[in-house]
């Protein structure tokens, strides 16, 4: 056997701390799904469900009353709906990055956070999909968007970026769900085999599909997992590129730029990693997972935040440069207006949160400090929401000064945004309670004991 070219994983920074055996890993990860839910979980769930009800009420009001309850006006015909859509889907991208791209690059540290991040992806994409669905006004004819035969013999326009978006989102959601589920199957089998009650055995058993850890299955399973990763990696890049086409394919100053696709992708990864850090810092504390999700993992994520935050900062600078260098006065005006116009407050919130705050991660002391990383990750999430807000409301001063105005959201806009967090956290809390939040099979696979040459003397 070709042992010599294999790097001994025990020489690297250990990914699992403490004296864990395979059995104790199963024990630690299964525990939150098998014991009674802690009190804080119930309190958090009550809060999340109340916000979810707020979202449902706002959507009901919107459908009953019409789109006029939102603060849209003529130059700013896209308001909170597109801002929230891009915000949520961007958060989702970190999950796919961790599960697919880091997998292809053999970054073994991803194993203890990928399940968590993929769950976040799916719930964030669900939140994102709410907005395009409700913004059409008459949501009962939302099926017009799909290429389905209908009584009007009408078909969608395949040359519109908005239609590309529909395909990109639905594909992204489906593929992420499949990827997540395939990863879950062996762990669901673990929960099935550990279950003490009949109901649990049946519930987990159905979804475990009869998995029995056979190597003849693992062989195809690993192949499928690798193929899915290879498919999801370009997919995630395409999804946010297509989101940016919604803006970039238009002919508007401030939007019609070629830097948008890479800049949006970097921003998406940036915001997504920040969200993973915010949630992980809390979850590892609450569920006693500190030996599986170590400081090394958090530090790796903070480094990604630093890199992508710097890329985003570069893109902001380059946009200004291109606006000046193009010599196109409308383009120049759009950017001067962003930084010094009526929305300067939003622009500078964006710059301070996205460009300045992650620079603190250059210092090892700061990027390994739990409170600092938690605060910065929240800042990044705020900043990235404002980035999309700034891009969208740039239109409030377009070509004709006579149509200039000021876009303000209404209370319905704001409550819908807050409510979407309720949807996200409700799903997330249910996930923490009922599914293994760390991939057991994958974590065991990176433990030194899993190496068939473990204990061999060379």
């Amino acid at each position, binding site marked *: 056997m070709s042992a010599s070219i294999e790097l001994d994983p025990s020489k690297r920074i250990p990914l699992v701390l403490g004296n864990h055996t395979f059995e104790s890993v199963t024990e630690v990860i299964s525990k939150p799904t098998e014991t009674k839910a802690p009190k804080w979980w119930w309190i958090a769930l009550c809060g999340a469900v109340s916000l979810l009800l707020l979202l449902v009420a706002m959507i009901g009001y919107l459908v009953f009353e019409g789109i006029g309850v939102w603060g849209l006006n003529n130059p700013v015909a896209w308001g909170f709906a597109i801002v929230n859509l891009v915000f949520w889907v961007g958060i989702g991208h970190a999950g796919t990055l961790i599960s697919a791209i880091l997998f292809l690059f053999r970054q073994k540290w991803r194993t203890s956070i990928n399940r968590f991040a993929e769950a976040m992806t799916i719930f964030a994409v669900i939140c994102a999909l709410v907005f395009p669905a409700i913004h059409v006004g008459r949501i009962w004819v939302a099926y017009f968007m799909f290429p389905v035969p209908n009584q009007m013999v009408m078909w969608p326009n395949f040359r519109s970026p908005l239609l590309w978006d529909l395909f990109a989102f639905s594909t992204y959601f489906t593929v992420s769900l499949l990827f997540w589920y395939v990863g879950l199957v062996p762990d669901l089998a673990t929960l099935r085999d550990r279950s003490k009650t009949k109901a649990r055995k049946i519930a987990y058993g159905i979804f475990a599909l009869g998995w029995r850890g056979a190597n003849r299955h693992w062989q195809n*399973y690993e192949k499928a997992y690798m193929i899915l990763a290879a498919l999801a990696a*370009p997919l995630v890049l395409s999804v946010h590129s297509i989101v940016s086409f919604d803006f970039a394919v238009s002919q508007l100053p401030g939007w019609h730029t070629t830097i948008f696709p890479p800049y949006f992708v970097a921003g998406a990864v940036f915001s997504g990693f920040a969200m993973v850090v915010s949630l992980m810092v809390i979850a590892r504390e609450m569920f006693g997972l500190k030996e599986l999700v170590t400081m090394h993992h958090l530090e790796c994520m903070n480094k990604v935040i630093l890199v992508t935050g710097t890329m985003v900062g570069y893109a902001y600078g380059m946009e200004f440069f291109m606006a000046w260098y193009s010599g196109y006065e409308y383009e120049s005006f759009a950017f001067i207006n962003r930084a010094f116009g009526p929305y300067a407050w939003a622009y500078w919130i964006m710059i301070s949160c996205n460009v300045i705050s992650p620079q603190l991660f250059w210092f090892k002391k700061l990027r390994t400090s739990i409170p600092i990383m938690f605060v910065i990750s929240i800042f990044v999430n705020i900043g990235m929401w404002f980035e999309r807000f700034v891009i969208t409301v740039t239109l409030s001063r377009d070509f004709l000064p006579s149509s200039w105005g000021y876009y303000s959201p209404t209370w319905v806009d704001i409550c819908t945004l807050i409510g979407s967090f309720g949807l996200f956290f409700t799903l997330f809390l249910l996930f923490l309670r009922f599914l293994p939040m760390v991939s057991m099979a994958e974590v065991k696979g990176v433990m030194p004991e899993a190496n068939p040459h473990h204990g061999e003397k060379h």
Partner: protein
Amino acid sequence: MQPFGYLAEFNTPRELIHAASVMRDAGYTKFDAHSPFPIHGMDDAMGLKPSILGWIVLCGGSIGLTTGIVLQWWVSTTAYPLVISGKPLFSYQAFVPVTFELMVLFSAFAAVFGMFAINGLPRWYHSLFNNESFAKATSHGFFISVEAKDPLFNTEITRSVLENAGGHNVSLVEE
């Protein structure tokens, strides 16, 4: 009653790999190794051929690609021809995103459903689940199962092969 076969337990991934290669060299074909995670080098130890899944995904991806192009071509030139910004009806450049997405979607379906189909899953009942200790296979246990259907299967010889390979708790599993 005809038994399903033997189930033998091992302590570590290393022992399991060794036992699998012993079974392979002894000429057994209907045996399998069970572990809570995939073990590096096990496919060679068991003498498995490479997975054919890649070819299935290639078919799925090709179908998705063709569907994407044909759908957009037919809709834009035949079913609902609309001139947008004076561009040709079949502006293939604008059709790249949807074609790509459909290719990925169909490939992913092929990868997931193809994988489960090759593995014969879902299969909620399996004789091995009758064995009490087999529940460990998804947590921390390492097992080799040999089916009675194997031409070399013999209640005495197979047991001693498994025991010599380092297996303990070698037991017959009922069908």
